[in-house]
């Protein structure tokens, strides 16, 4: 606990707070423009964080993303278009409120619940991460191998759409991770003689491609511009909020917890958290029939959940180096760049940095209240910014950003390739999140497998010789076999039904 004071002195500095303010404005702007996602905001930020100290770099990302996830609710309520995918779950509900003339309530609930959700998520992060880290310090390569497997399997299971497509997406990511000098024999794999490929596919241009270039392509394929904003006065968004929040205080707690837990699961981020929280809210509500007609209850649950999910995703990212969502996948890349390799050792060796991350989370989420309010007041102006002007500018930013990482145009090639691939993948129902997890965790998986194999003298039983490793291993095998078993049983019962139908 003696790390808190030095951590505070790391955060409460003029330059860090200044960076956070700029990041907040950037995040609110990007989040409130439909088609520009929070993950894209984080990806566009990396070239800048590259040149910063660790604490301001992390502060910039945390603030941008927290602001962007809330700001995504603004066009959802005003135009029925979610600003970020995390607002998609309840954007119909928010728009229904607006149609009833209650746009202030919709935005007010979104803002306050976002703040509360963010604080709940931050508190859970600050409480659980150090405890987990103390536990994780005992882990060896066997445990890390299974953890990586668990994270990757989880990414496939929770991904949206078909499991096979999720698996394909993951395998593509794992393949990309194998490109470059291999760790065991030092043999260049899939480099085809290119010196730049030997260092592997640089992660950051790949991210910029997958999250920004793909959005640029999507906008150009289906441009949507200029929609009428309902002419309702948006003045006091806090009116009547006390009643709503106190009526649904259980929903706030439930939404926050669901959000944080879903955030922890690798591959599932704020968007899935919001969908699950909204569905839960509807399932257990006394007024189920009111859902979809402009009822604030679902907004409370889901609005809290998506902001809580952001912090939840940092728990596995900081403790094990396993990203909880696409944004923390980017964060892990930044942490490695800053020499702050995620894992339990960073908790022991640089506790002030870890505590600084927690403090940044609280500060960012509390700052959301006044800044988000400002964004709501300015929402009309922000939504008037024509996207057909922004898109080319974003493209050029991506070009320069991808170049800046290694000062080479190879980064731009990687960005282009990954962007086109992500676009085609999403058009065909292949989720993108597993690919990113594969890229991040591929090296970790292989390294831990190889060193475990050397330790165990090539015996597979070594992977089950330690109690924690054995537990994790059994869990992973269960996750792998359950869907197969279920599919087999289903096919069997179908055949039985068919044959009994024939007999009758």
């Amino acid at each position, binding site marked *: 606990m003696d790390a808190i004071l030095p951590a505070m002195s790391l955060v409460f500095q003029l330059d860090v707070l200044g960076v956070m303010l700029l990041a907040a404005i950037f995040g609110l702007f990007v989040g409130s423009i439909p088609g520009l996602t929070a993950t894209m905001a984080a990806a566009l930020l990396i070239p800048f964080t590259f040149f910063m100290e660790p604490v301001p770099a992390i502060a910039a990302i945390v603030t941008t993303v927290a602001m962007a996830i809330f700001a995504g609710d603004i066009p959802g309520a005003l135009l029925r278009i979610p600003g970020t995918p995390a607002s998609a779950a309840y954007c119909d509900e928010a728009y229904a409120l607006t149609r009833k003339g209650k746009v202030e309530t919709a935005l007010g609930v979104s803002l306050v619940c976002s703040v509360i959700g963010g604080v709940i998520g931050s508190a859970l992060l600050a409480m659980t991460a150090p405890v987990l880290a103390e536990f994780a310090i005992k882990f060896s390569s066997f445990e890390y191998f299974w953890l990586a497997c668990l994270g990757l399997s989880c990414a496939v299971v929770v991904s949206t759409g078909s499991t096979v497509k999720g698996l394909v997406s993951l395998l593509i990511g794992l*393949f990309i991770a194998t490109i470059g000098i291999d760790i065991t*024999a030092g043999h260049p794999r899939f480099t085809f003689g290119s010196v730049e490929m030997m260092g592997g596919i640089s992660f950051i241009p790949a991210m910029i491609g997958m999250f920004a270039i793909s959005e640029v392509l999507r906008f*150009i394929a289906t441009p949507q511009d200029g929609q009428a904003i309902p002419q309702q006065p948006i003045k006091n968004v806090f009116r009547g909020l006390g009643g709503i929040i106190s009526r649904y205080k259980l929903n706030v707690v439930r939404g926050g917890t669901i959000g944080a837990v879903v955030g922890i699961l690798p591959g599932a981020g704020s968007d899935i958290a919001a969908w699950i929280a909204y569905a839960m809210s509807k399932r257990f509500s006394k007024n189920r029939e009111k859902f979809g007609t402009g009822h604030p209850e679902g907004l409370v649950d889901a609005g809290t959940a998506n902001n809580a999910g952001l912090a939840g995703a940092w728990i596995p990212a900081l403790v094990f180096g396993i990203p909880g969502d696409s944004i923390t996948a980017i964060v892990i890349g930044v942490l490695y760049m800053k020499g702050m390799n995620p894992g339990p050792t960073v908790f022991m060796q640089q506790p002030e940095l870890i505590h600084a991350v927690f403090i940044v989370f609280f500060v960012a989420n509390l700052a959301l209240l006044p800044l988000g309010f400002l964004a709501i007041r300015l929402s009309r102006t922000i939504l008037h910014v024509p996207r057909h002007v922004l*898109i*080319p500018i974003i493209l050029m930013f991506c070009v320069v950003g991808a170049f800046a990482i290694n000062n080479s145009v190879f980064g731009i090639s990687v960005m*282009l390739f990954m962007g086109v691939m992500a676009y085609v993948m999403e058009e*065909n129902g292949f989720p993108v999140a597993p690919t990113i997890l594969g890229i991040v965790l591929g090296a970790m998986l292989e390294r831990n497998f190889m060193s475990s194999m050397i330790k165990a003298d090539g015996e597979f039983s070594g992977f089950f010789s330690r109690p924690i490793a054995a537990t994790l291993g059994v869990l992973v095998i269960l996750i792998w076999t359950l869907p197969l078993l279920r599919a087999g049983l289903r096919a069997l019962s179908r055949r039985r039904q068919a044959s009994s139908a024939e007999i009758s």
Partner: protein
Amino acid sequence: MWLNDAISGTVLVLFAIAEIAYSTTFPTLHGQAYGPSLFPVLIGCCLMACGFVLIFRGLRTRRSQARALTSDHPQTDVGTTEFEANTTDPVWIRFGEWASSPSRRINMALVPGSLIAYILLSNTIGFMPLSIVILSVLLYRLGSSLVLSLGIAIATTTLLQLLFAKVLLVPLPAGLLLRWLG
């Protein structure tokens, strides 16, 4: 761009075969069963399996599409529009809305096109001139007026140059400007 799953599956299977074949040429470590080829081969095998599942699924949806087509026919009063819509329905590849309008097709090609142009030419032409050209073309094509496009392009490029080259010290290629100045 929508592809029938069978096409994605075929591409994946072909890719996996090539990848596995290439991986087997990797050297093996002396006295160790697992070398650099282990993970690529495993990934390739899984990809191939997924590819076959996708091919199977794609063929099945295509068959059910065709069946729906034939069973639909007697019920509809073979109106020409209906008929056309039906005959074109089960396809292998379907492009998005953008493919039907020539101007949007050009816009779609402009994104990879301008990036490739930048990759190839940035060293000789330099960041600033190339960025101004790319930005103004894209802005104009997406609907800004010519003067506005040029203005925004110059302003953005100057901002990027100041921000990245002056503040963050990224060596953006000077290209032509260097030759003129030097």
